[in-house]
């Protein structure tokens, strides 16, 4: 795979989206062709980049230093409809599918499969734009994001299953139950008792209708699966200097490892300066008022948390980097983009270090 894939994972509110935008800006400033995919349903990527609505297919962003940066926000329902429309042989089939109860429910309820759509969407992007150097994916917050690593297998299992093939045959006009053999017939009877025969038939129809789009999606999921396992792919675990998000980071690292991935870099985002960490223990005695004392406790607690977070992550990752909060991120326009890009450059440097460390440049 020519395009390098970088995924940012972490708990809620740790600044993944900001870092993804920052990394995208920095990489594209250095002359690489970069695409950014936001999976977070809150569309924060748009606010992080200070741009208006991003179309489902993505668009090029005005770049401060003339680099090539495209960005898209995942809208699973729209993506799925587009894929289905692409795969339907004719309008009549498409119309029938769009009325199928299972399709409606699936399109409505894709929340659970967002990560699978994201994986397939990433593969689609690389397929449409083979010249891309980097694809940076900002995943949904929390542990659920490992689903992005697991789901391809899950979804593949779903559409590949023998059960699904039997159900498909049920819906086909020539596929009578008799062709299934006695054991399978019994299984289907039992399933009918569970869900009703009508539902099984509707499901079978749904499966046959989406067969073409499923085949495409399966191919893309396969590609995404290989891509995710490619040595150039980086999983970056992001945490805030707080215990709760560090716990998510630790759990994410464990879950990713259980799925055969090895995240190499953890980022402690919005880290406090080391000087403050050293001064913090003495602060409480220096507080002139009750509010100042509460504030001093808060600062000291933050500093202790940061030290704990570092200690928790160090044994789990070959590299743990602290990124300071950028002072200018609250500014507007060029100052903000410059601040973002500077942060991104630090992250890109940390990633490049990792690449060097294992002989990948």
């Amino acid at each position, binding site marked *: 795979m020519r395009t390098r894939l970088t995924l940012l994972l972490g708990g*809620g509110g740790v600044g993944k989206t900001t870092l993804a935008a920052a990394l995208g800006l920095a990489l594209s400033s250095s002359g690489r062709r970069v695409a950014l995919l936001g999976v977070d349903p809150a569309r924060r990527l748009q606010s992080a980049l200070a741009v208006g609505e991003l179309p489902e297919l993505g668009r090029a962003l005005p770049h401060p230093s003339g680099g090539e940066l495209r960005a898209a926000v995942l809208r699973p329902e729209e993506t799925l409809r587009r894929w289905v429309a692409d795969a339907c042989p004719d309008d009549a089939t498409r119309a029938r599918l769009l009325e199928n109860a299972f399709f409606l429910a699936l399109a409505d*309820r894709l929340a659970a499969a967002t990560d699978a759509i994201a994986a397939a969407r990433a593969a689609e992007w690389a397929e449409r734009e083979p010249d891309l150097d980097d694809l940076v994916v900002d995943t949904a917050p929390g542990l659920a994001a490992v689903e992005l690593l697991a789901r391809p297998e899950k979804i593949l299992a779903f559409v590949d*299953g023998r059960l699904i093939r039997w159900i498909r045959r049920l819906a086909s006009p020539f596929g009578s139950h008799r062709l299934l053999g006695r054991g399978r017939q019994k299984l289907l009877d039992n399933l009918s008792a569970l869900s009703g025969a009508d*539902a099984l038939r509707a499901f079978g129809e749904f499966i046959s209708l989406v067969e073409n789009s499923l085949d495409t999606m399966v191919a893309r999921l396969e590609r995404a699966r290989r891509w995710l396992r490619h040595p150039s792919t980086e999983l970056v675990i992001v945490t805030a200097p707080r215990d709760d998000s560090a716990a998510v980071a630790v759990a994410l690292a464990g879950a990713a490892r259980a799925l055969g991935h090895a995240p190499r870099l953890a980022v402690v985002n919005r880290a*406090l300066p080391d000087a403050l960490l050293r001064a913090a223990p003495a602060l409480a005695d220096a507080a002139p008022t009750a509010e*100042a004392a509460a*504030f001093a406790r808060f600062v000291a607690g933050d500093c202790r948390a940061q030290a704990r977070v570092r200690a928790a992550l160090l044994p789990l990752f070959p590299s743990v980097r602290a990124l300071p909060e950028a002072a200018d991120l609250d500014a507007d326009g060029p100052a903000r983009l410059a601040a973002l890009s500077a942060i991104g450059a630090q992250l890109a440097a940390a990633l490049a270090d990792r690449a060097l460390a294992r002989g990948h440049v």
Partner: protein
Amino acid sequence: MEGPARTATGRRGRAADFAQRVRWGRKGCGGEREIGEEIGEEIGHGHGLGLGLGFAMWEGMALPLVVYVLGKGGVGRSTIAAALGVACAARGERVLVMQWAIADALSGWFGRSAATHEPQAIAPGLDTMCFSAEESLREYFVDHLKLGLFYDAVVRSRHVRRFTRAAPGFEELMFLGHQMYLTTLARDERGWAYDRVVVDPPALGHGLSLFGVPRAVATFGLGGLLREECARVQAMLDDARRSAALVVTTPEELAIEETLELAPRVAAELGRAPVACVVNRAASARLGALPPRPSECAWLATLGERAAVAGCDEDAGAVREGLARVYVALARRVAREAAFPAALARSLGAPSARGVIAVDDGLLVDGDGAPATVIAQAAAALAPLVADGGAR
């Protein structure tokens, strides 16, 4: 003894026989009617709650049997769920905190090893469990329907398992079904008697769509057992005496933004407003109003000077800068906290803001900061919510 609270076990005969259910088709075996009514009676009598009250956050209310703790990731949902459990247990209730997460967060906070799908005691009156869709499926077929053979031969078969794992909404339905099971059938079948089930589902996106699942599954045109299951789960969600949502936020910008979107969506999906909104990691009670700029805060300058003296000269600037950064973030939090109740009321179309409960940030409180301490402090803040009459 570890394990769920037990009462005198009385099996009310076997749960409906599968074959009979199938023969009776959509009408089931006539067991459904009583479940809802029994619950109504149990709540009406056993807990002394009035019926037919307006169970909305804005009218002051009592917590129902099942409380869903919702919120975006990282706001401390599990902490608040644990604190709510502790607050209820402190009133003598038998409480279960039901998590659905890759790892059990609660048990460790109470010095226990991780819980599985089977409830384990973590404090007096307080149990926790970590939901597993597969275990739940097994319980449903083997323990509830007494269909061990069917389960082994069909449900556990590789192909069916693949299907149930990947089918959209199926695991969510099992999850909701488990709350219904816990608060109804498990009383007879397992002898469990929880007065309160606090549910800690996965983060926002997932947690929210949860309530729409039975309705969505119902559109599949299902018959058979799944249809009955959906109807029963929907009945539980529709009933303000049996279930409620509680929303957790922090005074962080993104959390507030998403909570203002989440609350009305929960209200729409559930058909009623959340029972309360907890602002976790609140700062205003401890810090008072903070002027927005560090330069305007008298004590911050003093603190900076004294801290700088303590350190070495080169560090002085960095220390002051670090302090100013923490200050600015806190000043913003305090300002957002002050504006939040009115904004929440507006988002829900309510006339005034009630039911907002602040839980102080553990770091601002004098204490050891250990999870158990933080949970105890949060439980104290939540006490008015679980007291009779609820939040006012």
